[in-house]
């Protein structure tokens, strides 16, 4: 229960975060930092609703303990993408292409898609599906999510 303090870059802002080392990063993000965009679906690595980036690497925050962070780690949650007034192309396209319905999977999908587009600005539909294989959606049937990512990639490349 002895808490520890870590200095992290949270969505681009330096922040001192204090929590028990055995807390799940997911709980620290939602309960301590009040960033409730990151969701808990399964709590065991299956669904991807809790996906975030640590140092540009996609992970499930339900399977990382707070103590595993290092000082200086860069954390990106869905709140770090864009807010309601300044949506990123990816967020915009999830709306226009019907990539979101109930929204439970959406933050994780956005983060996983963002991670893909950092590394691969021109993914094929197969590559998009592959990159989102760890993210489950009970609503959309995935086609529209893939459409959304494909469209966003195009816009980001300046092609549409």
């Amino acid at each position, binding site marked *: 229960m002895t808490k520890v303090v870590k200095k992290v870059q949270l969505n681009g802002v330096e922040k001192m975060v204090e929590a028990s080392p055995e807390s799940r990063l997911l709980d620290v993000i939602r309960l301590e930092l009040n960033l409730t965009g990151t969701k808990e679906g399964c709590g065991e690595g299956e669904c991807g609703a809790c996906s975030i980036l640590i140092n540009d690497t996609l992970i499930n925050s339900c399977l990382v303990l707070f103590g595993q962070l290092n000082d200086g780690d860069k954390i990106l949650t869905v709140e770090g993408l864009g807010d309601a007034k300044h949506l990123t192309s990816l967020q915009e396209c999830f709306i226009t292409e019907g990539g979101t319905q109930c929204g439970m999977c959406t933050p994780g999908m956005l983060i*996983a898609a963002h991670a893909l587009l950092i590394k691969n600005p021109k993914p094929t539909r197969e590559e998009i599906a592959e990159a989102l294989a760890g993210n489950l959606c009970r609503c959309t049937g995935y086609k529209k999510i893939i459409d959304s990512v494909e469209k966003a990639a195009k816009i980001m490349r300046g092609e549409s």
Partner: protein
Amino acid sequence: MKDFVYHKADNLPEAVALNAAYPDYPPLAGGTDLIVQWRSGIRKLDGVVDISCVDELKRIYDEKKEIEIGACATHSDIIGNAAVKKHLPLLVQACMSIGATQIQNRGTIGGNIMNASPAGDALPVLLIYDAEMLLQNVKGERWVPVRDFFKSYRETALESGELLAKIRFPKRDFFDYRGAYYKIGTRRAQAISKVSMCVMASVSHGAIKDIMISLGSMAPVPVRARGTEALLKGKVIDDNLIHTAERSLADEFNPIDDVRSTAQYRSYVCGALIVKFLRESRIKK
């Protein structure tokens, strides 16, 4: 309630010392097995020794005669490493079959080995490539070849106080070999294997000069199919031999029924996989 004890190692000597000092607190690498087991109540946990940030344990060394992979190298680290791709392509394939990106980015080869599940997807590959494990404790270290490492269901040669530090693979010349890694699960991503097979063969003029077959989920530990290998060596691949191989492999082990599959299905599928491999090897000269 007792406080949870969290020890974090910053370097290898510290990891070894903490691991020896706190035998009741398991090493925490990627946590993709340990955290799930703990949170679901399968495994009681009063503390951990966090080794996930130890740089020395994450490195992959491309040496002259071998490749050494640190126990905390993630599946993604392995998939992305050029030397591993060149010398151990079946290991890359196996790591690519583990979970989805999030799991590959976090889960480690050492965790896969030490979780020691018969369904661990990297394990059959270790048998084919003759891997050796480096076990370290405060007194010293020892190398254990993979054939002596997996003792019985979820039991390994690792003793209390020892840490798996790295895995060494000899660089062998597999120039004229053809290899394949097959994983059968309910779906491609995120599924735990029902059966996995790693096979490598050297075929010349239609005859099998050498063949190695290893299997996951067919026995309490990952196994080499020595009986079927011996039966096939030196023979010409024809329909008859393919049929013999299928029957022999299905008969060589006594798999079990469990939540993922049945014994009958497992035997049937591993027979079907060797048929597929031999048919393709025949076509490929």
